[in-house]
């Protein structure tokens, strides 16, 4: 009988457990979770904080007891894992107890990034990553008295926090060190169009504004300006939770390779046999560069976890990788970024009443797309770009072309981005 360990139980951990159980009905699956909470998408925190979702709506796979029973898991939520001993394929628990396994999955996710200097200003701030973060913000807003707020970080989470505060009548400033909104997903032109719409709605946006401290009165910017606020929320980004395998002294064997996340191959294996990683803590293949990168997305974590679980249980499985992609619905708008916006190429665009599509093509082949105001055709375009990068037919199928035309694109533009 095989012994499996899953450290961290979010989307990736859940999918791995489910895959293992499908393939190995009798194996022992030990799940180590420091929260004891059922898997949930950190993106839902803003929906909980804004009261659009209640707690039972946050857990898509059901409650922990139900999951534990269905998948026959041994759940350890009261024992923290201190480190993963890669040389002995063991887990060291707090208290020093060691447990060995046949295969270990690290699925520890990511945490909200808080640059050290920001803590030194002595001011309180909120984050938006965990359920506790969301509950804390919700309680604070229920107390009342929040008239002015600063959201630090024009990320996909930052914009949603800004929106939920705005909808409660709070005067909001969104400050970011970048030159424009969503710089990892948006072209500057698309970002400017979004920014204009946001400013028309009354949101105060400040770019190239590095926040140097959170103080009891608000925030201080690197250029000396201060922004007064009753509430500050940091949404700067996330950092992969790699501590369990990082900086551990390895006396024999080798260390697990870590860049910004734990580096894995197409089978979600780390460089150390028997140790796997999946989800936001790992770096899988970015199809556009061929290199590994953290692509922290829900569906990606699910696919990676499933692949890891299959391989851990002895089946051969490859997950070919993914592209940067994002859909963000905020202030009644949709922004979709597909592919790396900073890759070179020729720009082409299509504007129709109500929506804009911009694309960058290199030698006639699609590198990236920005879609603003039309979610419905986004999946066709994402599928097309991914398929092209996987080496498949680079042309849109007639059905997809027809659907894009029905969605408002001109035949000429469809032919152009469709590889004809």
């Amino acid at each position: 009988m095989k012994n499996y360990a899953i450290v961290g139980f979010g989307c990736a951990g859940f999918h791995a457990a489910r895959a293992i159980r499908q393939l190995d009905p009798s194996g022992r699956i030990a799940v180590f979770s420091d929260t004891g909470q059922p898997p949930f998408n950190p993106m839902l925190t803003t929906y909980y904080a804004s009261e659009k979702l209640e707690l039972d709506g946050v857990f898509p796979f059901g409650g922990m007891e139900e999951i534990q029973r269905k998948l026959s898991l041994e759940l350890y939520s009261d024992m923290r894992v201190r480190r993963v001993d890669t040389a002995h394929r063991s887990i060291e628990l707090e208290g020093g107890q060691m447990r060995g396994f046949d295969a270990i999955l690290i699925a520890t996710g990511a945490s909200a990034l808080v640059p050290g200097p920001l803590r030194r200003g002595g001011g309180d701030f909120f984050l938006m990553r965990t359920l506790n973060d969301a509950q804390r913000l919700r309680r604070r807003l229920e107390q009342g008295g929040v008239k002015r707020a600063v959201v630090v970080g024009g990320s996909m989470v930052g914009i949603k926090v800004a929106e939920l505060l705005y909808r409660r009548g709070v005067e909001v400033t969104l400050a970011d060190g970048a030159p424009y909104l969503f710089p990892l997903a948006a072209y500057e032109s698309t970002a400017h169009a979004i920014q204009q719409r946001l400013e028309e709605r009354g949101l105060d946006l400040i770019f190239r504004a590095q926040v140097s401290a959170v103080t009891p009165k608000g925030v201080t910017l690197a250029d000396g300006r201060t922004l007064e606020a009753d509430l500050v929320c940091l949404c700067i980004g996330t950092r992969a939770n790699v501590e369990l395998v990082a900086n551990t002294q390895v006396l024999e064997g080798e260390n697990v390779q870590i860049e910004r996340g734990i580096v894995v191959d197409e089978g979600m294996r780390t460089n150390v046999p028997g140790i796997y990683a999946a989800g936001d803590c790992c770096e899988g293949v970015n199809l556009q560069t061929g290199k590994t990168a953290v692509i922290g997305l829900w569906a990606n974590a699910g696919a990676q976890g499933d692949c890891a679980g299959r391989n851990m249980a002895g089946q051969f499985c490859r997950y070919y990788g993914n592209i940067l992609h994002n859909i963000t619905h905020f202030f009644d708008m949709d922004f979709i970024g597909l592919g790396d916006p900073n890759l070179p190429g020729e720009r082409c665009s299509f504007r129709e009443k109500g929506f804009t599509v911009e694309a960058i093509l290199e030698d006639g082949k699609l590198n990236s797309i920005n879609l603003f105001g039309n979610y419905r055709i986004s999946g066709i375009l994402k599928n097309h770009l991914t398929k092209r990068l996987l080496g498949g037919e680079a042309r849109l199928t007639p059905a997809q072309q027809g659907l894009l035309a029905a969605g408002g694109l001109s035949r000429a533009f469809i032919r152009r981005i469709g590889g004809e």
Partner: protein
Amino acid sequence: MSYIFLLDTRKCIGCGACAVACMDQNDVQPQEGDEPFRQCFVIEQGSGKDAPVRYLSMACMHCAQAPCVQGCPAGCLKKDTDTGFTVYDQTNCIGCHSCAMACPFAAPCFDRAGKMVKCDGCIERVRRGMQPACVRVCPYGALQLVEKETFGAGQRGKSARLLAYTALDGERTDSE
């Protein structure tokens, strides 16, 4: 019992009766801003006056490995084990549109409350032994719903899902 939608492009005349029946069945009101679940359009093959013209009628393809199911952060979508349809419960839908970005065929729509709606294969009708509204109304029998067990090799070219993934006439270029 699992089902497969068929579309015979040699029979479809693009009349749009299927799309209208779908709106009627699902209370979709385009004049109020609702998006139709089923869309019909012409496919141009080549150019000139002799270029063949074909029509397609498309809604949810009920993919076996449905990417929308994996894409939904709130667990609103799932595969119905009896029929094979991709079904949904929009109670916890937050209107994030992640399902739309996951779907290669623009199937997910959103109602006026901002919650996802889409073709569910008329599952309530099918469970009661009736045909989906679109199939029932098709005047030429171009749209059909068949049981997977009776789906023969000769019908491959008519599988709506394969048609969507490939060029016309079932010229298969991708996995189902």
